[in-house]
């Protein structure tokens, strides 16, 4: 039938040529390199800046060895790694991060879900949540320490307060910005109450929710570092404790190395969120094909 053939022809014309026939291994190598070189460049820039700082002789007294060069710093870091000290510190800190962040996600999702469902709460609690996201988490420490003492709980409390509002906000924004046309289509289809949430509003708000999770992680990590510097718990070795020790011993070289570790962990976790975000946007066709 003529219409049928014309339609099929038009379809294949509009879909354009097939993807390039590049072999799997080559494609993997190209993508791997594309993902790696910016990170190598970033590392080189950081170490280069350190080297310049070292050469600038900032304190005007290079003889006192206030700061070592990057090679010395990395050697120092390696030393701590071998002695197990660094790994133990990272372990404690990451455990707190994991527990704190998990709690934040639970709290953020519950609060976000309730607030987005109940309009009167939306106005009242919504503005409190926005207020909380702008509150520097370090300002919570006096409150937390008086309440919990110098304990893990005080740190976790501040981590949750720092990051849960962002997560709740991401969820609420996602629900708010569900495209009205899709809502209309969903209702015409007969999606009601729970099904409407399950099949339309939740998936529609996923990108915004992931953005909230990502921002929540950044806030959790910052709050945790502030917490470990302010709340020193006897007998527990964490990145904060290492950094504090360096401050007391005026060991600038070691302080910079620990800071690089903190930076690295933050960047790696953030990278995971970015990957998830890109995967979602790619599936939905929200990425420029030139990048994807």
């Amino acid at each position, binding site marked *: 039938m003529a*219409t*049928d053939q*014309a*339609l*099929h022809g*038009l*379809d294949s014309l*509009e*879909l354009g040529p097939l993807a390039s026939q590049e072999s799997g291994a080559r494609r993997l190598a190209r993508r791997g390199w594309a993902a790696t070189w910016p990170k190598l460049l970033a590392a080189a820039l950081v170490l280069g800046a350190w080297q310049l700082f070292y050469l600038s002789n900032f304190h005007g007294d290079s003889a006192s060895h206030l700061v070592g060069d990057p090679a010395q710093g990395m050697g120092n870091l390696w030393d701590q790694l071998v002695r197990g000290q660094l790994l133990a510190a990272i372990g404690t800190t990451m455990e707190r991060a994991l527990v704190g962040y998990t709690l934040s996600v639970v709290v953020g999702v519950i609060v976000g879900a309730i607030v987005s469902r109940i309009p009167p709460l939306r106005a009242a609690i919504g503005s409190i949540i926005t207020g909380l996201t702008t509150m520097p988490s370090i300002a919570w420490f006096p409150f937390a320490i008086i309440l919990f003492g110098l304990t893990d709980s005080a740190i976790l409390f501040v981590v949750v307060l720092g990051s849960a509002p962002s997560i709740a906000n991401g969820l609420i924004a996602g629900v708010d910005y569900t495209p009205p*046309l*899709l809502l*209309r*289509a969903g*209702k*015409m*289809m*007969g*999606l009601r109450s729970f*099904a409407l949430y399950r*099949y*339309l509003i939740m*998936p*529609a708000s*996923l990108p915004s929710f992931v953005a909230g999770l990502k921002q929540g992680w950044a806030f959790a990590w910052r709050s945790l570092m502030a917490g470990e510097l302010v709340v020193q718990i006897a007998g527990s070795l964490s990145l904060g404790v290492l950094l504090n020790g360096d401050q007391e011993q005026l060991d600038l070289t070691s302080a910079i190395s620990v800071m690089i570790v903190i930076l690295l962990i933050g960047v790696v976790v953030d990278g995971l969120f970015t990957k998830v975000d890109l995967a979602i946007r790619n*599936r*939905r*066709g*929200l990425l420029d094909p030139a990048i994807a």
Partner: protein
Amino acid sequence: MAAVELTGVSKAYRTGRGELLALDDVSLSVRPGEFVCLIGASGCGKSTLLNLVAGVDRPTAGRVGTGGRRVGLMFQEPALFPWLTAGRNVELALRARKVPRQERRARTAGLLDTVRLAGFGDKRPHELSGGMRQRVALARALAQDADVLLMDEPFGALDAMTRDLLHDELERICAERTLTVLFVTHNVREAARLGDRVIVLSSRPGRVIGEYPVPRQGPRRIDSAQVARIAATLTDTLREEMGRHGH
């Protein structure tokens, strides 16, 4: 009995500057299986009228009835869910109607075949062309087992060639399923090409100002003489109506 019946329907909206009368005393009756095109300039309340028939909105005065028939709605945008494949989009409409799982798969395949998209079920909406997406939307509307299909400028955003082919397709599908269609458009040729009857609405407020039956004389084309003649009459009526609003 009519498939869609509007009796003395008026619809007013409250706006910042007072009340806006979108539809004024519109009476309209569509027979089962009839294809009726609604045409009018901007502000004729076409979309309002469809919303009333779909039951998304209530009239200020008058009655709207579909005799308990299922109503499906299609928009100018396909409004597909971007996180689902084409097949899943169609299947969701079946799921919303509580069609059992085993049956859903077969019916989804059948519906995609109906709109000539067999084999594209695994593609996501953004991987399809505009015309293909609109066909998925049609399959989804058909999945609602609607007897009455309301179409709000469904081909308005497509290029002329694609639109022309989709006219043939829509005609075939409507004949196969004896669908009653209320089709809103800005395009006089499209209205004359598709409709069994074309209804012209005035603007601000929307009133019925003309009705033009288009008798079936064998297969129609967008460029056939009958279509051109009726399109010309429609254009004249619309221009006259638009002129009334100029100063």
